Structure formats: C-alpha cells, structure tokens
C-alpha cells in the first residue's frame, strides 16, 4: 500500500513505532567532519523525520547499526563467560539500496561462512526491518549500477522524501496498522539507472594469472600514495573484519570484558602474530589484498556476486584521493597485460 504523510504525521507514527522499534537513520553531526566546519553523517537513533539526513550520502554505512565498531561479546570472571545482552527493541533502519545489498553480503560471512553462524550478528539481523530510502541519482562517487546494487525489493517500507512530506510503499503487513487513516498514494520507489561512474570488473581467468597479478608492479603505486589509515574499510558497506580483545578490570586479568572491534586489513599489524610474524608489510600489498577481496576473492568463495556494492564511500573517505574505481581500471589493464604475455 502506498501512503503520503506529512512530516508532522510521520513524526506521530515514529512516536508510536518507538514502543516497539529503535529507529536508525543517517544523521548529520554538525562540525564533526574530518575537516573543521564540516559535518559527519553517520547512523544514529532518530526520533523525528527531520533528524534524518536524506539529501546527502552518509559518510559511514548502515552496517554500523548491526555490527557496531565496538561491541561487547562477553563479561568474564575467573570461571565464566557471560554473554552480553542485545537490544530489546526491534530495529527499523533507513537504508539506501546499496546498503541493503551490503547487508546480504555481510550475512554470507556472518551467518554461513564455514557453516558457522555468528550469534551476535544473527540476533541483531533478526530484529531488523528495512525502510528503503529511495535513491534516484546517487552521487559522483557511486557506481551501484555497475555492481548491480542500484535496486532492491528487500524492504518493509520504501520512502521518498519530499518537501515536508513522505511518500511510502508499505509492503510489510506489520506496519500497515500504523498508517491507518493516512492518505493513500500510488507509489513504487524509483532507482538509479545510470551513474556518472562506470566500473567494469575484469575476470581473472585462472590461478596463475592471479598469482602474477599479485606481484604486478601496479600495486607499487600505493606504497607511495596510500597512508594505510583504514578509512576506506571503516567506510566500506561490506567490510566485516574485526579483532577480539579483552579489557581486564583487575590486575591479574581474570575479570573483564571481551570486545569485538572493527579491524582493517589496510592498517599495519592486521596479520601480526605472537612471535613477530606478519604478512603484507607494504601499503601496496594491503591495497591489493583489499581490492582483490572486493572484486575477486569473495565471489570466488561464495560464487554469487562481488563483495563491493559500489557505494563509493571508500572514495569519499580516502584522505589521499585514491579511487577504488580507478584502481579496478588499472587492475583490468594489468590483467590484460599478463594474459597477453601468456599467449
């Protein structure tokens, strides 16, 4: 069913929804951007429609709602690990189609990789209801069309933000009662049909080409350009890596808290083992590892689609102006070179 509601009416609905749901959406934090007098847009709980930043792409992805950067797993004592509690309410999350796709990409890792299901992800995931924010133009760093993530049918509600009013497609029967008495409207969300940015993902024909690609000089460029800050992976809609650390409350370390904290394969130390062993010790190698994961390795494992959803946040957030799209283009050229040499 389609509805048209004023912000005022929508806020009343929000208030009712909050008995059962936490409402999460991209929100603007004035002055909290990387540079002074710039803002940060990240996911946060909202109470009103006005708090939702719908005109600009968020700096940070929706994944933060399901997998916060720091998450408590257990509280431990000398002889016991006690699970942390999940939020009681359900989660209503406003997401663009790219972020919706990204959740499914994350699910593959958290819920099924190696036939192990991560309880922490699952318990959050089960609470999620999606409000798809209609996205029709994207921005100049988006390449969702290239990645096939420009469109999604997977939502409970879809919303178009107008001046002072929302137009909604309410698919999920759970939400129908909230809209009783509201003006109906004929509405199906539109989507991005073309991006300014096109990325053609090259095929890596075999393992030997992959091996040669790994040592191709193209990656050396990033030894100089990339500062290994990890901003790209934190901004990434699909990156899932984390490190488990213990915080100890007492001196002998027997009482404390086990946490999961987002980790980045771009930051030095990602592979460090006790005893001093480490891998991928240059920025170029780390870049290669990330790019191949997004545009080869993930698909090679799960057989379905590439990991990257083309949200372009890594491009937006890179303080060194490294574009993943340009990097993929360079990789395609390198593959052509390698294949040509083989023949």
């Amino acid at each position, binding site marked *: 069913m389609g509805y048209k509601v004023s912000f005022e009416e929508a806020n009343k609905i929000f208030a009712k929804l909050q008995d059962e749901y936490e409402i999460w959406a991209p929100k603007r934090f004035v002055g909290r951007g*990387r540079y002074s007098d710039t803002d940060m847009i990240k996911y946060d709980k909202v109470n009103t429609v006005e708090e939702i930043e719908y005109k600009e792409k968020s700096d940070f992805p929706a994944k933060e709602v399901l997998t916060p950067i720091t998450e408590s797993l257990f509280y431990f004592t000398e002889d016991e690990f006690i699970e942390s509690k999940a939020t009681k309410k359900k989660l209503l999350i406003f997401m663009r189609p790219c972020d919706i796709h990204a959740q499914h990409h994350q699910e593959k890792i958290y819920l099924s990789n190696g036939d192990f299901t991560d309880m922490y992800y699952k318990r959050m995931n089960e609470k999620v209801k999606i409000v798809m924010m209609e996205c029709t133009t994207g921005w100049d760093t988006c390449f969702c069309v290239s990645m096939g993530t420009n469109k999604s049918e997977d939502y409970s509600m879809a919303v178009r933000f107008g001046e002072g009013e929302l137009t909604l497609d309410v698919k999920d029967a759970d939400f129908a009662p909230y809209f009783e008495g509201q003006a109906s409207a004929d509405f199906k969300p539109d989507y991005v049909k073309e991006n300014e940015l096109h990325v053609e993902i090259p095929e890596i024909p075999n393992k030997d080409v992959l091996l040669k690609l790994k040592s191709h000089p193209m990656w050396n460029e990033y030894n100089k350009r990339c500062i290994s800050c990890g901003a790209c992976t934190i901004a990434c809609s699909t990156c899932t890596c984390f490190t488990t650390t213990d915080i100890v409350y007492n001196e002998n370390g027997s009482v404390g808290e086990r946490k999961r904290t987002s980790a980045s394969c771009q930051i030095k130390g990602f592979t460090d083992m006790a005893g001093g062993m480490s891998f991928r010790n240059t920025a170029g190698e780390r870049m290669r590892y990330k790019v191949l994961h997004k545009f080869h390795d993930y698909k090679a494992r799960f057989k379905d689609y590439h990991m990257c959803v083309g949200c372009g946040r890594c491009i937006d957030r890179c303080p060194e102006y490294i574009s993943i799209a340009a990097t993929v283009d360079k990789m395609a050229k390198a593959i052509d070179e390698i294949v040509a040499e083989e023949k």
Partner: protein
Amino acid sequence: MNHDIDIKKVRINCYRQSKVAGEFMLQLRVPGALIDAKHLSMVQEICERWGNGTFHMGTRQTLNIPGIKYEYIDEVNKFIKGYIHDVDIEMCDVDMESNDAGYPTIGARNIISCIGNAHCIKGNINTYKLARKIERLVFPSHYHIKVAVAGCPNDCAKANFNDFGIMGVHKQVYDIDRCIGCGSCVEACEHHATGVLSLNANGKIDKDTCCCVGCGECSLICPTGAWSRGKQLYRVTLGGRTGKQNPRSGKLFLNWVTEDVVLGMFANWQKFSAWALDYKPEYLHGGHLIDRVGYKEFVKHIFEGVEFNPEAKMADDIYWAENEQRGNMHVMPLSQHKFAGPTEERGYSFAKK
C-alpha cells in the same frame, strides 16, 4: 630635485617613502588576506598608471604599489576610494568615512591571516572572517597594533611574531566506541603535534590533556571519526615582534578562549592604548606599550568587562625571553626610560640632570 613633502603625513596615509626621491609605495590593506579577485585588476591599473609597473606582496599581506610619485598621490587616493569602501567599510564593517583622501591612518597594521579553514585541511577556523571582525575593532585608529590570525597552532601566519597572535583550536572529542585502536592519532600527534596521545592496554587512547594544543591532527587522521572537533576556541600569544632591537617570540597568553573573549579584548585595545599613552597618541609599537604598562596592569585594562568562558585559561604572568640584537641594550639610564599611563599616576620622579 627640490621636494617639500611632509613624510610623516604621507606615511599615515599609507604611503611609504622610497629611496627614489619623491616616490612612494602605497600599501593597500587586506584584512584577513582574502578579497575578491576582481580587485586585482584595479591594483594592476594603479601599478601601471601611477606606479613603476611592478607590484610587491607586502610582508604584512598588504598589496604594495611601489614607485608612485608624490604628485600622483591625490589622484591615486581618489582611485582607491572604491577599494577602501569595498574592503574596509563593506567587507569589514569598519566605522569610517568613504572619501577621496585615501586611508585615514596607518595605525593598526594590516591583520595577517593564513588561508585558514576556508581552504586548508588543517585549519581549525575561518581566519579571514575573524580578521575582518578584528579589523573593525582596531581600525581606523592611530594606535599601532600588529595582529595575525592563524588557522591552527602550526602558525604558518607567524602569529607568534605579532603583538597578538590568534590561533584557531578545538577541544577534541573522543568517542571511545568508535575507536578501533589503530594508533594513527598517536602517531600523528607524535609527528605533528605534542605527543599527548598513547594507546593503552585496552586498545583505546589515553590523552595527556594538559599539553594538547587543540590542533586537530587526531581528528584529521582518525579513520572512524572517533576523534572529532568539539568547541571552536582560540589560543592567543602575546608580545611577539620582529625588530632591530629586541625581537622575540610571543608567549602563550590565552588558551581555549571563545571568539567573544578575543573580540572583547580587541574592543578594549584603543581605550587601553589611549590610557597607556596618557591620551596623547604617539608612534609606539603596541607590544612596547604592553611592556611599558606591565603585564598585570595590561590585563586589567584589556579585559575590562570581558567575561571568560569556563574552559578559558589566561597567563597569570608572562616572562618574555628577550632576544636583544645587542647585549643589555634594554638596560639604560633612567632619563631614557619611557613611562606608561597618566603622569600624575606615576609613583615616582627623578632628578633632572
């Protein structure tokens, strides 16, 4: 050549005497060092019509036009009426008359600024906006004062060598839940700033708040936005100067003060100068004036009616390290000493020779 020119009068009008007899260099003020580019063609025209065809970038960021013959000064003053109007009256909201006489005074020197956060990734404040606000408080006034505004404590504007050096800072805010313990901020603070951050055993950041300069290197490098800029504040150094006699770097005077405090302070500058000079304006560098009055007395006047924000810190006293070009030249017979304040308030006198 036979000249009869009142050099001092011309100087106050912002024309500097040239070694070429009868020639002068006009110094156009650019408070905050940022103006519309359209003015550049006007500057070029003056250089080519009345000057010697060259242009000099003033060390205090004035637009300098050398080689103007004395007899053209009136014409040039008429020509720059529009510029002074646009820049000082319109842009800076300075309370002065728009006329054909050129600049009414050279007193308060042009306010220097780095480009600030209008462009610079490291800038913490909009430097030119603040400079423009200060301009209207100190100009036009015959009282000399040198002010510079730097976007951050890196101080590319060399505010530290001005009577008042303003630097933009922020109280940085740390969101522990967004921190991934990557240590980038620790490294950045160590390399670029004061090294007040460290990674603790729990993989989070500890900060030695006492020595943070509020520069924002941590917020700049943080990949997650765990660090971000909080309240926009200012750091002010006092008493810096260059010169043949006793150049010195300024000393930290105010820290974590709001714009209201900074502007409140400048609003008192003319009143303070008048008092210190016993209401008889004379050509004296602002910094020397502060020296004459003494720090404790100076702050009493300069902060009259100013309310400090709760985070604000002010120097209790300042002990400048003089860097005399000639040893002990500040030590001199009492007869050569200069005094501040009304004569009747002077506590002592000395015998005439």
